[in-house]
């Protein structure tokens, strides 16, 4: 599913125009981006939470040439799946287990 498919699905489900649905999708993800850019924690109940982790720089090597390179410290967002979504993606599997 792409962003435009999400916009279409939202417009259809809510009976709103594509333009309004696009605004909603953009506001949602821009709000999430802003939180991560400020390194704030972000939690969407039932979906998951995001936390920006700091990684220290280190001295690495180019595996091809063996040259020493400095890897700078960096920040990366880390996603932890929420309980509801975690259970839902596995729902089909556990149904099969129960039948077996």
């Amino acid at each position: 599913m792409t962003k435009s498919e999400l916009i279409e699905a939202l417009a259809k489900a809510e009976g709103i125009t594509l333009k309004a649905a696009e605004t909603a999708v953009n506001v949602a993800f821009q709000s999430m981006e802003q939180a991560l850019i400020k390194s704030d924690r972000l939690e969407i109940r039932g979906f998951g939470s995001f936390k920006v982790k700091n990684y220290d720089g280190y001295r690495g090597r180019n595996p091809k040439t063996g040259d020493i390179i400095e890897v700078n410290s960096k920040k990366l967002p880390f996603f932890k799946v929420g309980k509801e979504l975690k259970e839902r993606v596995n729902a089909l599997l556990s149904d099969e287990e129960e039948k077996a």
Partner: protein
Amino acid sequence: MTVTKAHIVENLFAKNIFTKTESAQIIETLFEIVKDSLEQGDDVLLSGFGKFSVKEKNQRRGRNPQTGDPILLAPRKVVTFKCSGVLRERINRGK
């Protein structure tokens, strides 16, 4: 500070298109659609933000870290998130 769904609803309401109730309903439906897609095993690709995908994990032998007892972990699916390059740069620049 922790940003939550309530903040997103507030930001949508501020666009003056929907009432507060409608805004809350729309944001709820939006995440419901994303969850539905992942539940069906269909990845969700949001350009500029990142990609949510469902990965299948094989059955494997593990250990109870407390007792050291060997246990068999059932095959399962996990949701992973890969941040887009654009967003990663913005996070590192802080703006």
